[in-house]
Structures are given as structure tokens and as C-alpha cells.
């Protein structure tokens, strides 16, 4: 009620104001009339009498203002509203200025809101789980989180720091709910997973530790809310239903809550299955194998009162126990704890670094925008000098004028802020539903929240006040008489003004942005052309997990051979082969390699670590990998013949000293097998494009069969056309085969994703920076031309040549442009060192980049000064001199 009352008071105050105005006008008019009557009586004509009466009275406006104050007017709200009204009128009168100012700020605020929202979603509140502060994930020394299942059991049972240590692995399985069987993404979770994380069921019940009774003892499925919603249409009757998972019957236990998306950011599982059933899911008996590190991450809440350091010490005492007890499998074990969600520091650090860098650039944009707006406002304030001094002469107080100017700035700031925020929300919505890789359940959970709104609006208002303050000094210095006498106070000095500094700063920032985006674009272009060690053009990949369709052991090998023979006979196919995984796939396998003489096969004695690919005969031809020496595998390299390998140059160099030495030599792998090198291939890229050269080895898949199958089909024609054919051919062998077919070049999108994202964001920021500096330079040039119109007119009248006029008008903006660009270029080159970490081959000392930046800045300058220069040249001295 109180609130409503105060509103009523305020509204009535507004009415009172207009009443007061009317009454005042009436009374003053009546005064003038009475005075005129007197004067008329003294013998003047009526008209002359009224004129005299007006003159005697003096400036009515000033007295009205005083009357307002005297009669209790001038209260804050009222003045505020009148300021707002006046500002709106003023802004409406110069739509160009208003649009440029609001647009500039909207861009800057939008960029900041966007980057902050992503930062907020990914780093400030990553998983959104209850009690996240005490939640930690285990991390190995190399930054990964992978553990073996027996190690997990030891860590779980022996530690005294965690309330409950849970584990999860990630795999894909074929789920048949009675309709179309399809591969789904699965979290294999330890029984205590949901209890350890304190996740309540949305429907039915979730898993408990008591469900686990040894390998394959728990045929239960928990559905994610998303999967339940999309595939079961929110049917609560699914609880208790039996479905087929990799051809095994599983019972649906329940559904997780909608806000739970698993414990790896970006990667939301569709279903959860007990980890003890790993064999049925992954087709391999790995539960009991201590050297197979496939469990994705261990995590849990620390007990109350246990610090991170204590917990790490506790874990490492278990690590040394494991090392001592299982020297073969657990050599060199060491743990730290990291925040779960971004896969600890493995993903977290680069993501943080990248976002931090983006935030910095976004802040630079905001700074540039503020500088820009500051220049605009300052220029405008001096254009309005006459108006302002007129108001001061008429008795307006300087505080009132400043207040009004600040109101104007704040209005623009708010409009820009709201506009920018709306834009960024629209973008964020799209980002949240965006699926960069159709193969993976990846999504970026960045819906904006209150924090984002508040930050954006605070930034807007703060920057509004920042640039609004720029003209203050100017107003305070205004000498009313001077300005009115001479038109405008032109101090055409060589003095460096705040405006100049702001503009130079802004150009420098813009040059930094342009430099970084060019560096990123160049890096991306180069990474697309670099040598992968295989040829992704004209090749199609078809991948399947045979265990999902019920094949294992010899049946799987036979199926692989049938698929190969079928595809080899298809039209358009030049060659075909298969492997367990491919270079630049996300699931890379690494093998430790030992010298032939080594007998102690602990990880610390390894001569090298190499990326391991198990390939069928013909793989090198199908993949387009060049064989430098020796031979390819043949169909005779199977389980009955001695183990052989093909290695890359880097492998040969590291293990044997040189490529020529490597042929026919032997090395050992972890399980003690002696392997003979029969071929050497070119180097390539294995994990990502920015990596240092890595060693790699290829083993015949026939010597150690797998169910994971990647078919590589090389064609002479358009690979896209072959996709459907391949799918049909394979499904004609087995309609229940879960398949994924696409050109190899599309499959590589994932690898290029980080540098693409970096390039895209930097490109956008670069364009924004460029736009800002165009408006900035344009503003200054236009301003300096209009300021010196009269001088230019006189010059032209006295016969100045066009280039002299131009030099007079635009020398200063150009000098600033030159100076700012140089500074920005140097800063930008320094900044690209940071970029090199993310963007492949981002070398700042690249002549193309240097030339590009110089050219871009010159173009920007040309573009921005074009219109003012045109104006300067077309000055008609006659009109101008008559005018003033």
C-alpha cells in the first residue's frame, strides 16, 4: 500500500508541475499586462508598452526555474523525469548519433554478455550438482582421469577421505526398446554413483551399491530424463519394463531428474548402466584387468573436515601401495584432485585459458566501445557548446546541465545494454541447443541466468557513466559569454586532447583484434592443408561396434571379413580396409613400447609411447598412408604367425635411432610379445592437429581381433554419393547392425572444432573491433572537418589545392590511425603467442598477417574518412562565409 501511495504522490507531483507551470505563466503574463498598462498611461503606444514591459522583466525562464525551486519543486523524481523527457527529445533530434552510440554499445555489451554467459555456464557453475564445493575427481599425473577397475576398487575401499568414491565409464551400446534398435551413449556407473552424488530419482529408483554382485550381475538401466522424454514420451509405465541392450535383457529401474546431465560437461549420457556389466556393454572382459585403464573418472565428495591436500596425500599413500603390490601394472602412479566436469585439468585448463582470453578480448571491445562513445560524446558536447552556454546564460545551473548530460548517457547505455543482452540471449539459446557433432551427445549448457543479466546491465551502466563523464570538464569550463560571442571556442592547437588519446587507444585495441583474428584464420587455413599422414579426401568411414549386434570372438572376425568382401565388390569402391580405431579419432589408444632387450616391462622403462592402431591388410592403401619401406600386412599375418608391426618414422627414430635401422628389427610391447617391424610409414597427426610429432604403430588386426570396427572405403568419385550405398550394403548383411557412415572429411570436423571455434570467435571479435574503429575514426574526422569548416572555406577561397585541404582536415585523424595501428600491431603480435596454444600453427611472424593488418587498418581509415573528406572538399566558401 505504501508503495502505491508513493506512486500516487509522484504522479500527482507531475500533474502539479504542469498546473504550476500554467499558473506561473498566467501570473507572469498578468504582471506584464499590468506593467504595460502603467507604461501606456505614461504615453507609450500599447505595442511599445508591452515590449518595454517584457524587456524590464528580464529572462522569464530563469525566474520560472527559481519559482519551481521556491515552491518546493525540483525534487529528484520530477527533475529526473524532465531530464529523461528532455534527453529523449535531444536524442530524437540527432538520430545518427543515437543509433551509432546505441549500436556500438549493444555490440560491446552483447559480446561481453555472451562470453560471460559461456564462462558462467562452463566454469563458474560447471555441473550444477548439490554441494559441488566438496566434489572432486581423481586425476593422473598426465592429466587424464582414466583408471582400471581393480584400481578403482582398491581406491574406493582403502581411502579414508571420500564419503563415497564413485566411478563412471563412457561407452556406446545398442539399445532395442522393441522398435528401431539404435546406438545410445551410456555412462557405466558404479553402484554407489547416484548415492555418492546425492541424485534423487525422478521416477522409479536409481542404482545402489547393493545392486552389484560381481560381473554381469546387474542387468539394470536408468534412463536420463532427456532419453525418457524423447523416446518414451514421458510414459511413467516404463519402470520395470525389459529392453534389449547389446542383445541382453535389461530392466528399466527409473529416470534421473531433468537437471542432471551426467558428470562430464558437454557430454550427456542417454542411459546409465551398472559398470559391473561392462563385459556385456563393451564386449571385452576388462573388469579384472589391472592394466586396462578404461574407467573414465573417479569422483566423490570429500568427508567434512578433510582438505584437498589431506585427500591427495591419502590417495598417494594408496598409490604407493598399488605400485609396490602390482609393479607390472601400476608403475609410476600419482594422483591429484581436480574439479570434475571439464575432465579435470585435461580439458578444463585449455577451456579456461581460451575463455579467459576471450573474456579479455571482450573486455577490450567494451573498452574500445567506451573510448569510442567517449569521443562521440566529447565531440557532441563541444558541438553543443553553444546550446549549453545559452542555457547557462539563461540561468540554468551547471549541476542541472551535467545531470541532464549524464541522464542522456545513461539512457543510451541502458538502451544499448538491453539491446546487446537481447542479442546475446538469442545467440545463447541457439548455442544451448547446438550439437556440433551429431555422433556425440555433446551440448553446451549455457542458458543465461540472473548473474548474466546483472553483469550485462552493470557493465552497460558503468560504461554509460564512464563515457558520460568525458564531456564534464568541457561543460564546467564553458564560459557562456565567450561561446555566444564567437560562435564556438575553437582551440585549433596542437595540444593532445583526451579525445586523441581515446581514439588512439581504440585504434590500437582494434588492431590487436584484427591481428589476432587474422592469425587465427591463417592458422586454420594452414591446419586444413597440413599433412595428416592419411588422405581424408575421397574416403568414407563406416563404424560399428559388432558386440552391440551380438557378435564376438571368431564370429566378429568372420563378420568383418564379410563386410570387407561385400564393400570391395561395390561399384565406385577402389579399396577398402578396417581398423579398430583411426588417427585423429577421439578415442585414441596408446601403447608403451620397450627395447627388445628389456625384461622389466614397467611403464617407466618404456622406450617410447606410441599411438596404437590395429589395422587389416590393405589399410595403408585405403587410408592413403604412404609406405616408405618394407611391406603392408597380408592376410597371412594372423594369430598363427609371428607378431609384426608397421611403424611411423618418428617411432623408428625414437626406438631404433633412425628409419633405415628400423627395418626388420624387434621391439616388445606391454604383454611381453616380441614384435618385428616389417614396414615404415610416413609421420602423421594422431590426437590433434597442434600436437608435436608423435610415434605411432600399426599392428595386424587379425593377430588380436576386436569388435570395434572402422571401415575405410576409398573411392574415385564423390564420397557423399557412396554413403547410402555403403549403409545399404552393410545392412543387407545384418539389419540390426548399429552403423555410422560419413565421409572422412566430415568425421574430422571434431578435430578441427577447437581451432574453428577459436577462429570464429576471434573473427567475430575482429569484425566488431573493426566496426568500432570505423565509427571512431569517422567520428573524429567528421568532427574535425565540421569544426574547421570556416577555416577550410577560407583556405579554398584563397586557392588551396584539394590535397592541401585534405591534409589540413584529416592529418590528425590519420596520424592517430597510424600511431594506434602500430601500437596495436605490436601488442597483437605479442598476444598471438597466447593464441598459439589453441590455434594450430598460429605464428605471429607471418608476412601475410602483417600485410593483412596493415592493409585492413588502411582500408578502415580510408572508409572512415571518406565521407568527411568528401565534405571537406565540397566546402563552398561563399555559403560558409555568409552563413557565419
Amino acid at each position, binding site marked *: 500500500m505504501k508503495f502505491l501511495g508513493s506512486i500516487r504522490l509522484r504522479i500527482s507531483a507531475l500533474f502539479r508541475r504542469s498546473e504550476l507551470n500554467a*499558473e*506561473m505563466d*498566467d*501570473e*507572469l503574463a*498578468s*504582471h506584464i*499586462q*499590468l*506593467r504595460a*498598462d502603467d507604461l501606456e498611461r505614461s504615453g507609450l503606444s500599447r505595442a511599445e508598452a508591452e515590449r518595454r514591459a517584457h524587456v*524590464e*522583466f*528580464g*529572462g*522569464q525562464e*530563469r*525566474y520560472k526555474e*527559481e*519559482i519551481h*525551486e*521556491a*515552491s*518546493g519543486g525540483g525534487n529528484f523524481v520530477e527533475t529526473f523525469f524532465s531530464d529523461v523527457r528532455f534527453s529523449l527529445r535531444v536524442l530524437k533530434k540527432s538520430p545518427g548519433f543515437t543509433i551509432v552510440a546505441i549500436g556500438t554499445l549493444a555490440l560491446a555489451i552483447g559480446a561481453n554478455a555472451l562470453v560471460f554467459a559461456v564462462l558462467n555456464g562452463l566454469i563458474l557453475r560447471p555441473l550444477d550438482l548439490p554441494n559441488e564445493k566438496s566434489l572432486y575427481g581423481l586425476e593422473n599425473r598426465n592429466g587424464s582421469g582414466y583408471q582400471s577397475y581393480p584400481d578403482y576398487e582398491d581406491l574406493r575401499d582403502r581411502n579414508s577421505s571420500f564419503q563415497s568414491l564413485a566411478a563412471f565409464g563412457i561407452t556406446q551400446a545398442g539399445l532395442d526398446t522393441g522398435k528401431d534398435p539404435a546406438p545410445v551413449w551410456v555412462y557405466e556407473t558404479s553402484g554407489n554413483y547416484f548415492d555418492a552424488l546425492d541424485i534423487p530419482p525422478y521416477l522409479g529408483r536409481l542404482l545402489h551399491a547393493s545392486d552389484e554382485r560381481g560381473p554381469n550381475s546387474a542387468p539394470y538401466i536408468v534412463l536420463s530424463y532427456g532419453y525418457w522424454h524423447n523416446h518414451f514420451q514421458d510414459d511413467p509405465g516404463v519402470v520395470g519394463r525389459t529392453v534389449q541392450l547389446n542383445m541382453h535383457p535389461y530392466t528399466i529401474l527409473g529416470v534421473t531428474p531433468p537437471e542432471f546431465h551426467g558428470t562430464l560437461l558437454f557430454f550427456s549420457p542417454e542411459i546409465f548402466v551398472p559398470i559391473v556389466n561392462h563385459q556385456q556393454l563393451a564386449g571385452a572382459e576388462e573388469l579384472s584387468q589391472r592394466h586396462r585403464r578404461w574407467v573414465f573418472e573417479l569422483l566423490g565428495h570429500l568427508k567434512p573436515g578433510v582438505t584437498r591436500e589431506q585427500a591427495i596425500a591419502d590417495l598417494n599413500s594408496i598409490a604407493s601401495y598399488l605400485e609396490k603390490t602390482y609393479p607390472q601394472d601400476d608403475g609410476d602412479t600419482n594422483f591429484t584432485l581436480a574439479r570434475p566436469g571439464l575432465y579435470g585439468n585435461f580439458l578444463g585448463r585449455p577451456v579456461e585459458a581460451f575463455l579467459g582470453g576471450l573474456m579479455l578480448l571482450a573486455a577490450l571491445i567494451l573498452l574500445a566501445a567506451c573510448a569510442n562513445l567517449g569521443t562521440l560524446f566529447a565531440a557532441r558536447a563541444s558541438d553543443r557548446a553553444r546550446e549549453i552556454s545559452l542555457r547557462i546564460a539563461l540561468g540554468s545551473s551547471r549541476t542541472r546541465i551535467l545531470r541532464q548530460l549524464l541522464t542522456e548517457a545513461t539512457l543510451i547505455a541502458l538502451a544499448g545494454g538491453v539491446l546487446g543482452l537481447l542479442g546475446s540471449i538469442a545467440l545463447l539459446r541457439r548455442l544451448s541447443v547446438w550439437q556440433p557433432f551429431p555422433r556425440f551427445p555433446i551440448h553446451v549448457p549455457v542458458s543465461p541466468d540472473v548473474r548474466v543479466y546483472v553483469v550485462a546491465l552493470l557493465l552497460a551502466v558503468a560504461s554509460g557513466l564512464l563515457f558520460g563523464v568525458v564531456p564534464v570538464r568541457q561543460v564546467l569550463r564553458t564560459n557562456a559569454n565567450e561561446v555566444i560571442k564567437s560562435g564556438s571556442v575553437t582551440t585549433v592547437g596542437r595540444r593532445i586532447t583526451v579525445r586523441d588519446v581515446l581514439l588512439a587507444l581504440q585504434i590500437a585495441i582494434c588492431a590487436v583484434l584484427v591481428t589476432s583474428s587474422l592469425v587465427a584464420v591463417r592458422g586454420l587455413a594452414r591446419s586444413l592443408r597440413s599433412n595428416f599422414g592419411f588422405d581424408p579426401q575421397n574416403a568414407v568411414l563406416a563404424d560399428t561396434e559388432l558386440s552391440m549386434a551380438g557378435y564376438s570372438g571368431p564370429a566378429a572376425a568372420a563378420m568383418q571379413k564379410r563386410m570387407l568382401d561385400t564393400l570391395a565388390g561395390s561399384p565406385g569402391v577402389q579399396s577398402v580396409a578396417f581398423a579398430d580405431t583411426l588417427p585423429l579419432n577421439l578415442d585414441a589408444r596408446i601403447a608403451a613400447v620397450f627395447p627388445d632387450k628389456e625384461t622389466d616391462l614397467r611403464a617407466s622403462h618404456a622406450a617410447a609411447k606410441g599411438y596404437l592402431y590395429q589395422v587389416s591388410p590393405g589399410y595403408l592403401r585405403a587410408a592413403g598412408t604412404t609406405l616408405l619401406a618394407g611391406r603392408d600386412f597380408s592376410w597371412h599375418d594372423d594369430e598363427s604367425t609371428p607378431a609384426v608391426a608397421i611403424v611411423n618414422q618418428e617411432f623408428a627414430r625414437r626406438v631404433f635411432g633412425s628409419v633405415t635401422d628400423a627395418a626388420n628389427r624387434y621391439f616388445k610391447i606391454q604383454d611381453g610379445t616380441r614384435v618385428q617391424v616389417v614396414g615404415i610409414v610416413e609421420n602423421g597427426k594422431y590426437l590433434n592437429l597442434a600436437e608435436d610429432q608423435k610415434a605411432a604403430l600399426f599392428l595386424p588386426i587379425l593377430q588380436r581381433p576386436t569388435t570395434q570396427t572402422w571401415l575405410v572405403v576409398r573411392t574415385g568419385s564423390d564420397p557423399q554419393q557412396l554413403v547410402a550405398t555403403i549403409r545399404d550394403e552393410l545392412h543387407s548383411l545384418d539389419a540390426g547392425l548399429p552403423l555410422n557412415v560419413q565421409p572422412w572429411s566430415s568425421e574430422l570436423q571434431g578435430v578441427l572444432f577447437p581451432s574453428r571455434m577459436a577462429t570464429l570467435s576471434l573473427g567475430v571479435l575482429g569484425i566488431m573491433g573493426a566496426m568500432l574503429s570505423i565509427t571512431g575514426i569517422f567520428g573524429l574526422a567528421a568532427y574535425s572537418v565540421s569544426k574547421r569548416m570556416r577555416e577550410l572555406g577560407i583556405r579554398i577561397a584563397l586557392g588551396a589545392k584539394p590535397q592541401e585541404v585534405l591534409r589540413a582536415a584529416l592529418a590528425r585523424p590519420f596520424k592517430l590511425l597510424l600511431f594506434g595501428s602500430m601500437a596495436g600491431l605490436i601488442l597483437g603480435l605479442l598476444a598471438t603467442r597466447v593464441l598459439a596454444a589453441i590455434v594450430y600453427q598460429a605464428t605471429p611472424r607471418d608476412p601475410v598477417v602483417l600485410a593483412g593488418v596493415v592493409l585492413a587498418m588502411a582500408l578502415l581509415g580510408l572508409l572512415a574518412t571518406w565521407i568527411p573528406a568528401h565534405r571537406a572538399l565540397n566546402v563552398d566558401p561563399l555559403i560558409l562565409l555568409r552563413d557565419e
Partner: protein
Amino acid sequence: MPDQAQLLPGTLDLLILKAVSLGPLHGYGVLLRIAQISGEALMIEQGALYPALFRLVRQGLLKANWGTSENNRRAKFYELTAAGRKRLREETEGWNRLAGAIASALAAQPEEA
């Protein structure tokens, strides 16, 4: 125009109250009345009068009503309220005390000190 005395700050309100106490007046009338009763010695800037009038109305010392002037012009007439009468009395006493004190101070002769 005869020599004009400088108006001391704070005295305008007192003069207005005094002028109005002699009978209801419109703003222009207040000016004329002050000129008249001060023997043309005190001239008030025309515009400066109105803020003072509005201030006094707001303080409840004057009340205003629209009426018709002697030459048939619509005008706003001011008259004293009870509070205004009281204030005029107090201010007049205060002023007289101050004026007397200043007068006697200025009249002091060297031997009396």
C-alpha cells in the same frame, strides 16, 4: 529615479509581508507598494519578486486567490495568513532590535568608549 538603497539579503520577504499586510495585492501591486512605502528608495527587480512570493505561499505565510484588478485585468491577489501576520510581527521586532543596535553602535562617540 532617486538613489536606490541596496536591499539587504533576507529583507525582501519582510518587505513583501509588510506590503501585503496593508491590504491584498497582486504581484505588480506589491512592487508598486514597496516603492511607494519606501519613498521610491527600494526598487525590486520585477522577476525576483515571484520566487519570493511562491516561497512565502509555500511556507503558509501568504495565501493567493485569483481576482480582478482595478483596471479589469485578471490577477492573482496575495494576502497575509494568521501565520504571516505573526511572522511579520516577529520579523519587524527583530529588525527593529537589529537596526537600533546597529544605529546605537554607529552613533557611539569616541569618549564614551
